[in-house]
C-alpha cells in the first residue's frame, strides 16, 4: 500500500511531448519560466496560454491532472492574491465598504496570480511527461560542460538514480517494520503530534540501520561491477536530438521573441 506512493508525478505516455529529448524539455522549461518574468501587462499571457495549451493538448494530460498539480500550492496562490489585492496602494474602489481594495491591487493580483499559475503548470508539465530516469539523464548531460569548473555532474546523477532505485525498497521496509511494531501494540495514529513523533522512533531506528547496511552492500556490489566514477564511462542509451526536438526549440524560441516584442 505504502509502495503506491509515486515518486514525482510521472504519467507514462507515448506522445510527442513524452518523447522529446529530456535536455530540450529541461531547457525549454527554464526558458519558459524565465520569460514569464519578462511579461508586462496582460496581453502577452495570451501567447503563454497558447503555448501551454498546445503542450497540454499534445501531451494528452487531462486538465484534471493539471489542476491537481496546482492544488498543493493553492495556499501560496491564495496568499499572493490576498496580499496583492489589499496591500497595493492606489485608487480605492468604492463599494467594498471599509476594505481597502484598489484598482491597482486587483490588477496586480490578477497579474501575479496568472504568472504563478503558469509557472507551476509549466514546471509540473515537465515532471508529468518525463520519467525520473530520463530527467536524471538530461540533468547529467546538461551539467557535463560544467564539470571543468567542478560541478560533479555524474555523481549527482548517480545519487539521484540510487535514490530513485531505493525509495520503493525503503518504503516497503517501512511498511513491514510498521506492521511488525503495530502487531506488538505500537500506535502510530492517535495522540498529539509529540506522542506520534515519539512513536516513530522505534520505526526510524531499524530503518536507518537497514539503510546503512544496504548502502554498504551496494557499495561493494557496484565496486565488483567495475564502477570507478564517471570517467571513461559510456552509456548504453545515447541522447540524440531528433527533428521534433528542433521544432520544439524553435517554438519555444518564437514564444520568447513574441513576448519580448510586446515590451
Amino acid at each position: 500500500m505504502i509502495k503506491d506512493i509515486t515518486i514525482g508525478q510521472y504519467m507514462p505516455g507515448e506522445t510527442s511531448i513524452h518523447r522529446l529529448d529530456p535536455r530540450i524539455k529541461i531547457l525549454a522549461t527554464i526558458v519558459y519560466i524565465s520569460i514569464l518574468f519578462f511579461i508586462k501587462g496582460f496581453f502577452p499571457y495570451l501567447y503563454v496560454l497558447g503555448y501551454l495549451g498546445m503542450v497540454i493538448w499534445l501531451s494528452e494530460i487531462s486538465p484534471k491532472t493539471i489542476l491537481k498539480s496546482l492544488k498543493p500550492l493553492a495556499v501560496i496562490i491564495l496568499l499572493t492574491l490576498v496580499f496583492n489585492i489589499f496591500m497595493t496602494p492606489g485608487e480605492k474602489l468604492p463599494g467594498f465598504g471599509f476594505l481597502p481594495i484598489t484598482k491597482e491591487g486587483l490588477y496586480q493580483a490578477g497579474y501575479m496570480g496568472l504568472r504563478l499559475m503558469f509557472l507551476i503548470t509549466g514546471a509540473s508539465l515537465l515532471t508529468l511527461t518525463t520519467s525520473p530516469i530520463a530527467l536524471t539523464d538530461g540533468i547529467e548531460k546538461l551539467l557535463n560542460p560544467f564539470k571543468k569548473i567542478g560541478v560533479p555532474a555524474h555523481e549527482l546523477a548517480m545519487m539521484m538514480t540510487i535514490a530513485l532505485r531505493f525509495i520503493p525498497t525503503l518504503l516497503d521496509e517501512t511498511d513491514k517494520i510498521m506492521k511488525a511494531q503495530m502487531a506488538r501494540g505500537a500506535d502510530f495514529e492517535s495522540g498529539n503530534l509529540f506522542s506520534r513523533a515519539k512513536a516513530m522512533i522505534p520505526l526510524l531506528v531499524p530503518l536507518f540501520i537497514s539503510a546503512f547496511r544496504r548502502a554498504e552492500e551496494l557499495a561493494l556490489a557496484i565496486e565488483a561491477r567495475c564502477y570507478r566514477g564517471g570517467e571513461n564511462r559510456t552509456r548504453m542509451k545515447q541522447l540524440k536530438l531528433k527533428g521534433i526536438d528542433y521544432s520544439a526549440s524553435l517554438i519555444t524560441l518564437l514564444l520568447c521573441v513574441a513576448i519580448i516584442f510586446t515590451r
Partner: protein
Amino acid sequence: MTSIISAQNVVFEYISHDDNKVTALDNVSQEIKKGEFVAVLGHNGSGKSTLAKHFNALLLPSKGTVYIKGMDTRNEENTWNIRQTAGMVFQNPDNQIVATVVEEDVAFGPENLGVEPHEIRKRVDEALKTVGMQDYAKDAPHYLSGGQKQRISIAGVLAMKPECMILDEPTAMLDPSGRKEVMETIKRLNKEEGITIILITHFMDEAVQADRVVVMQRGNAIMQGTPKQVFAEIDKLKSVGLDVPQVTELCARLHKEGIDIPLDVLTVEEMVVELCRLK
C-alpha cells in the same frame, strides 16, 4: 585444463573494532580450473565470503597470493581486468541492483568498462535472453520476484563477458521456486556458456550438482573432492556442523543396519536405482 583462479597460502585478517585481529582465512590454497563448477560449503563464519571476495580483488590477501588468469590481485593495474574476468553475485538481490529499469541495470557493468553503446545494447539483450528475462527488460526491478531479481543480477555480470562467476549464497533469500530458477540458470551458464562457477551455498542439494565440493572450517579448506567423495564422509561433515543430503544420510543408516547399499548416493533418482537393485 589450466587454472583460472589460483590461490596460494592465502591468509587474511580482519581488524575488528577493538583492534583485535580476526583470522578469517588461514593458509588457504585453491586451484580452480577453467570451466569447473565448484561449490563451497561451510558453517557461518568459516570464511567463505572472505575467500570469494579475494577472487574478485575486493579483498587483498594479508599473506600469500591470488592469481586470476595469471593476474596478481595485489597489482592495482589488474584490478579492473580481474573484476571483469571474475564477476560476483551477492546474496541480497535488492542491494546489488543499481538502476530503476532492468535493462539499465544490466548495462551498468559494461558501461563502467567503457564498452561502445551499440555493443552494450547487444550484450544486454543477449544476457537477458540467457537468463530468460528478456520480457522484463523495461520493467522496474522492485516489482520482480526474488528469483527474477537474482537472475537480473546474474545478467548484469554476464554482460561484462566474464570467464568466471562467483556467487555468494545467491539463493539464500529466495523461495523454493526462485532457488530452482537461479540454480538452473547457473548450471546452464556452466554447461552451455562454459563459464567457471564458484557457488557458495548452505544448501546441500545445490552442492551435489557441482563438479567439486570444497568444505571450509575456521578459515581452512578442510575437505574437498567430488560430491560423492565429500558427502560419503558423513561423520566428518557433521563434526563441522554441516548436514548431508537426506538420501545420503538414509543410506548411511541402512548401511549400519547391514543392508548392502553404497554410501555415496546423493539424489533421490540414484536412491531409487539402488533400492531397486537390492531385491
